[in-house]
């Protein structure tokens, strides 16, 4: 299948942004970051504001509405932003830019985003892609915790503590992270599919070994994991 055409190189002058509709209908924003073309989601992950209206200095994109910021090359959130940008690979052929494939859920996710293509590729090699229908219970409290999951599409509800509402997860969000904790062989939460979902299943021990082989990236990932877990304690302490 031919790659979908996104736009022409001349449509996006250096250090500017443009919203484009790729063949097939996907809307995205193309940025020309000092001669390098990158593509990412058209709407701000915060409040669905068009990112093409944002401020762009050739490196950092700022959504004008509530000042969330990202480094467009890595998609990494900066300042007060709470979520990374979902990026898409672009392929340049002559004066045209084509969509190079879907974004990787691993790269979209808050745990591994921006840690570099080499690490993402090795993690992808460890990941098994699984489809689960709505209603499927992925795991329950007390189950053995060997693998963790990254949501690729669909909706998954994550229940932890005494909060009966739980959290509706988004693409790239990680769950089952007990598998990344040492001496914690059991699930402390449960996860159920709400809308047909595709998930990446990754063995916790293998991922930890990979992160140990790249301590700088491993440190960042573990720091983010600590922050992610700490957020759930707001729930535990809440009335």
């Amino acid at each position: 299948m031919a790659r979908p055409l996104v736009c022409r190189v001349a449509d996006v002058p250096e250090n500017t942004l443009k919203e484009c509709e790729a063949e097939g209908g996907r809307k995205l924003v193309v940025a020309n970051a000092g001669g390098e073309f990158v593509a990412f989601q058209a709407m701000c992950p915060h409040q669905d504001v068009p990112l093409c209206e944002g401020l762009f200095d050739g490196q950092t994109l700022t959504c004008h509405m509530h000042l969330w910021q990202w480094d467009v090359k890595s998609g990494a959130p900066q300042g007060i932003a709470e979520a990374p940008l979902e990026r898409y690979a672009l392929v340049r052929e002559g004066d045209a830019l084509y969509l190079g494939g879907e974004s990787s859920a691993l790269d979209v996710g808050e745990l591994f985003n921006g840690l570099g293509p080499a690490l993402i590729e090795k993690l992808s090699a460890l990941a098994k892609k699984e489809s689960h229908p709505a209603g499927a219970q992925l795991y329950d409290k007390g189950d053995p915790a060997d693998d963790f999951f990254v949501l690729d599409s669909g909706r998954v509800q994550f229940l932890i503590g005494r909060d009966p509402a739980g959290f509706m997860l988004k693409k790239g969000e990680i769950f089952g992270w007990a598998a990344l904790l040492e001496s914690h062989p059991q699930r402390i939460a449960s996860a159920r599919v709400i809308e047909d979902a595709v998930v990446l299943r990754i063995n916790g021990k293998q991922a930890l070994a990979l992160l140990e082989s790249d301590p700088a990236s491993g440190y960042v990932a573990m720091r983010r994991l600590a922050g992610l877990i700490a957020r759930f304690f707001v729930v535990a302490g809440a009335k």
Partner: protein
Amino acid sequence: MRIQVNARNRAYRFDAAPGEKILYAGLRAQAGLPYECATGTCGTCKAKLVDGKIADGWPAAPGRKYLKPDAGEFLMCQCSAEGDVSIEVASFVYPAEPGAPRVMSRSGAVREVRPLTHDVSAFDVELDAPCEFEAGQFMAMGAPGVAGLRGYSMVNYAAPARRLSFVAKKKPGGGFSEWLFSGAARGARLSMVGPLGKATFQPALAKNILCIAGGSGIAGMMSILARAAAADYFSRYKVHVFFGVRTMRDVFFLDELAAYPKADITIALSEEDPPQSARLRFERGLVHEVAKRAMAGKYQNVRAYLAGPPPAVDAAIRVLLLDARLTTDNIRYDKFS
């Protein structure tokens, strides 16, 4: 009515009175729900209905242009629950800071309406019960017989305050301001919700301050100046104020601004040449351009506060991010005009 809000990080449950807007009920219950204008224009408080029935108090609210109504999205500031409801908010929601002023419904009487220019008036409201608020905050205010609420920043600062001062610009077709300017307002009862807004100043900030305001946006800056003066802030930190209006006919609060000789205050006139004045500095130009010229090289340890018409605020944001390279947590504004 029981409301359940599922945010990205946790759920909140609170009660709402019949007809009470879901946003106000949540803020009253100390849930830090997302909002900016709280009065139907900005779209920041959008949520998705999961279960139950809601009533929309203002189906023509401009903020609805940010919604996907077929996906069940609605504005929490305009909708009330009809029975128990369950809703979803896409962002992280944290409990209100302990010690933050309590958001609630308040009432009072208009005590004074005093013209400041041909189209701007000051008015005072005497509250039935005193209110705590932070300098820079606003009230969402409703008048008898006028649909919907409008946001007005407090001009004064006192903790607690029994009397609140505001300024309002006369807007043709603006229900609240036309009512205020009609003469019917004096003595009238008002209902309001607040205090609201995150563009707040406390002396513990310990940073130099830059205020850029267009027109009636100067209101909140006056509150910030009052709070700073009471804490002798000017002797430790620089305070720069840029107040933009079109002509001398549109300027107000000159005496009040001149009462802060230790603050660095500039009036920017966009449509006429400035007069000579020994008391205050006047410059010609749009307020964000005047501020950009005057502030070059002075952005160390600066927190900026912005207010005014949305295009003026956007222009100032652009200067502060791209020229001044301020970090986003040091740029504060609440777009509600």
